[in-house]
């Protein structure tokens, strides 16, 4: 099986970096199609840089990034993104926010006006899947933080991306809401067969959701450990209280602690 996202020996220095230190160095990472990958690491380790590299928002100074069999030389167009900040547009209703990607991406862009009803139905379907049934007419600021984040996930998925990039999407939520959204994310992944790369600080989150976990070192970021997660799917939140789960989280914690010390 060939990799869907293949980051090969990538070194990247931001033009604006004052110390000239690379954000990531000799980074190697392979994620297979349909896989749920998680990237964990100490803060400032270049996780966000990795997101930008994989989506073609930044191009590596050295090395290659291949997504879906093609070397990335422009924004990849098949990606959906969600961040810690839901970044909903306050002047649009939640539904219109979710439809926003369709106003950009072809072929939806030219079809949107004539097939509006079909797309609206699809958006409402997604809203129902994340537990926001019938809330589309509300403005995002009328929703709670957790609900906005759910809507943000819908927006990231509406154009059926082949790659979903999540940058600490649940970082700002309370732990109950976070666990609820883990389950939403788990079900979305099961239903859509999309390749997901999740960047997170939360080791339990990574262990619960993903098939494969990459640990990154402190800046300049490299992958210091790669770990497959073999808990069978569908997973129940109960597994997070099993000894195996704790052992895995503990092991990951060891890698991160090492990475922090090395810095």
């Amino acid at each position, binding site marked *: 099986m060939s990799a869907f996202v293949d980051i090969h020996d990538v070194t990247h220095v931001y033009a604006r970096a004052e110390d000239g230190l690379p954000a990531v160095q000799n980074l190697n990472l392979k994620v297979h199609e349909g896989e749920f990958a998680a990237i964990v690491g100490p803060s400032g380790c270049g996780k966000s840089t990795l997101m930008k590299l994989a989506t073609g928002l930044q191009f590596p100074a050295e090395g290659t990034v291949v997504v879906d069999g093609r070397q990335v030389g422009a924004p990849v167009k098949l990606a959906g993104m969600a961040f810690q900040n839901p970044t909903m547009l306050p*002047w649009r209703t939640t539904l219109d926010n979710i439809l926003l990607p369709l106003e950009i*991406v072809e072929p939806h862009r030219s079809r949107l006006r004539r097939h509006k009803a079909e797309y609206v139905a699809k958006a409402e379907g997604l809203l129902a899947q994340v537990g926001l049934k019938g809330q589309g007419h509300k403005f995002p600021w009328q929703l709670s933080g957790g609900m906005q984040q759910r809507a943000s996930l819908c927006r990231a998925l509406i154009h059926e991306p082949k790659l979903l990039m999540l940058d600490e999407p649940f970082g700002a939520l309370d732990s109950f809401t976070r666990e609820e959204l883990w389950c939403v994310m788990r079900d979305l992944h099961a239903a859509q067969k999309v390749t997901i790369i999740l960047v997170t600080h939360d080791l339990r989150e990574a262990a619960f959701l993903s098939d494969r976990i990459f640990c990154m070192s402190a800046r300049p970021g490299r992958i210091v450990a790669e770990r497959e997660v073999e808990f069978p799917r569908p997973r129940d939140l109960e597994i997070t209280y099993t000894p195996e789960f704790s052992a895995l989280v503990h092991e990951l914690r060891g890698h991160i602690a090492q990475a922090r010390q090395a810095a």
Partner: protein
Amino acid sequence: MKTKSQLALAPWVFTVGFFALWEILCHVLKISSFILPAPSTILWAVWEYRNQLAYHAMHTLWMTLAGFGLAVGFGLLLGMVLGSSRLINAGTYPLLVGFNSIPKVAVVPILVFWFGVGWVPPVMTAFLISFFPIVVNVATGIATVEPEMEDVLRALGASKRDIVFKVGVPRAMPYFFGSLKVAITLAYVGSVIGEQNASNVGIGNLLTRASAAFEVPLVWAALVVLAVLGVIMYAITAYAERSMTGWAQRSQMAA
């Protein structure tokens, strides 16, 4: 709810009180109407000169709105360009600031050289004086789009234009409408200055003639008309702001 009704009543009480105090002081201190006419005298003058005042006020209103309209169109356009291009922004900023710091009254003679005395100088003065805040505000609104939002759209293959029109411009609207309140007041100042120096009609021109002839009550009447007109135009833009960008005014502070 006591405080709420008090708040609603306060502007009226203070306004009426202000004029009442003025009236009383004029009578008690026997101030000459040449120095400071009492409100009743001014009101009487407004009534006496109503036809003349109405005619000139209409003209001033037109001049202001024409200049303001130009400023809105031009300001939006230039603001969009400056907001979406850091290069053009950095390049033209010194020029813009330099131009803006010229007192516009000093430009009127040049406008007269170019266009002669008539309706053009007041409109142009109103335009020149009022476009700057619009440009700056629109540009700021567009230039401060959240980087995450930009990433979301760019990762979908959005062009710069897409981002400016889908996110930048709507996002700049509260800034834009906020600047309109400043711009309408400035445009009004501009048209009156233009009329004072380079027109044969308008409240500005009426002011110049009345003061040359020492018709003090008429000068004050013209000032009152200017104030009323200014408040009305300000209120209309403030209303437009509220109804167009309600989404931006949900803070407790704005309530």
